[in-house]
């Protein structure tokens, strides 16, 4: 299950994408996020609960501001670099 957290507005579209199938719940991305925008949550997949990374409930509608210091044009975001499973990536399409 691939989850897109982000926004689309006049400046373009920006999404943090997390693939729950690849995520092993190690929590490295949570540790390195300078904005504390990530957390480990229990996700219901195929009748089981799996621990995976997710954008926090509070930051979900605030990604425009929370993630702007790390937008890909400033180099790879810390969460993306920290993930050994390549389960988290960013999409930024400026308009």
């Amino acid at each position: 299950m691939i989850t897109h957290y982000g926004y689309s507005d006049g400046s373009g579209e920006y999404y943090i994408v997390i693939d729950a199938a690849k995520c092993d719940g190690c929590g490295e991305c949570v540790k390195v996020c300078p904005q504390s925008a990530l957390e480990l949550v229990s996700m219901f997949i195929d009748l089981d609960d799996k621990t995976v990374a997710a954008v926090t409930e509070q930051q979900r509608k605030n990604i425009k501001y929370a993630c702007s210091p790390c937008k890909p044009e400033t180099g790879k975001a810390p969460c993306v670099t920290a993930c050994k499973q390549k389960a988290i990536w960013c999409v930024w399409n400026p308009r």
Partner: protein
Amino acid sequence: MSETPKKEDVEYWRWQEYHRVFSEKKWKNKDIITAGVDVGSVGSKAAVMIDGEVYSWGVMRTGSNSPDSAKKALSWAMEGTGLRVEDLKYIVGTGYGRVNVPMANKAITEIACHAKGANYIWGPSVRTVLDVGGQDIKAIHCDETGRVTSFLMNDKCAAGTGRGMEVFADLLKIPIEKIGEVSLKVEEEPPPVSCTCVAFAKTEAMGLLRKGWSKEKVLAAYTHAMAIRMGNLIKRVGLEKEFVITGGQSKNIGIVSRIETQLGVKCLPMPDWRENGLDPMIAGAIGAALFGKALYEKEQKS
């Protein structure tokens, strides 16, 4: 709008609460009776299912207290059935207020439940589900079993959602149930309002009304803007046929037809929900009750 009372205190946004029992089906204690309670930001929905078939449901407005709304919705769904909460083998809470469903055995995100519910309502061909709720929009992509493969949540705010529609119903003094129809009563589709933000759109709408635009035209412009926004969300998650809309706005013909135009795709037809109980607005609660059955069976095995 001649049939609406002319009283000053009419609340145009106030939609009808409703419930149904499909009493031709009878329940017995040995049946796997499960319930799904979907506490949304605007509406609370509860569905009771017997052996995975819809038995009864209830829809009401969510109050300021989520646990209370959950309890009320569930007892409304069970009203006149003779069922008690103890008869339910498994209860799943979902939606915005899912952690506040006190009697639930488990809470599951509404994403999973809506996909499951849509799969049940329209069948395994469903791939893209757009859930337009009271305060947010979710674009979901799923496989033939109703399992979520990808999903996208809307940004920021209540723009272009059920709540936004309620605000417009009040502003334009049009009963909420008629808002879709009225928005289609324009000779030519007006350009969309520039901003779907409820607060700004309201200001913009006032300006358009002063400019002499008809209510219908203003509403069409707002609905048009909402449809564009929703269309973009779906394109990001990947539009694949078959496509369906769930949540309260699935009944807003103005929204549905404009999304279809945006995407160039027809939604699967609205089920005859008054007859068969497959109400797209209750998709989340139905999905939750189905998960309840699966989880109960899993517990029995282990």
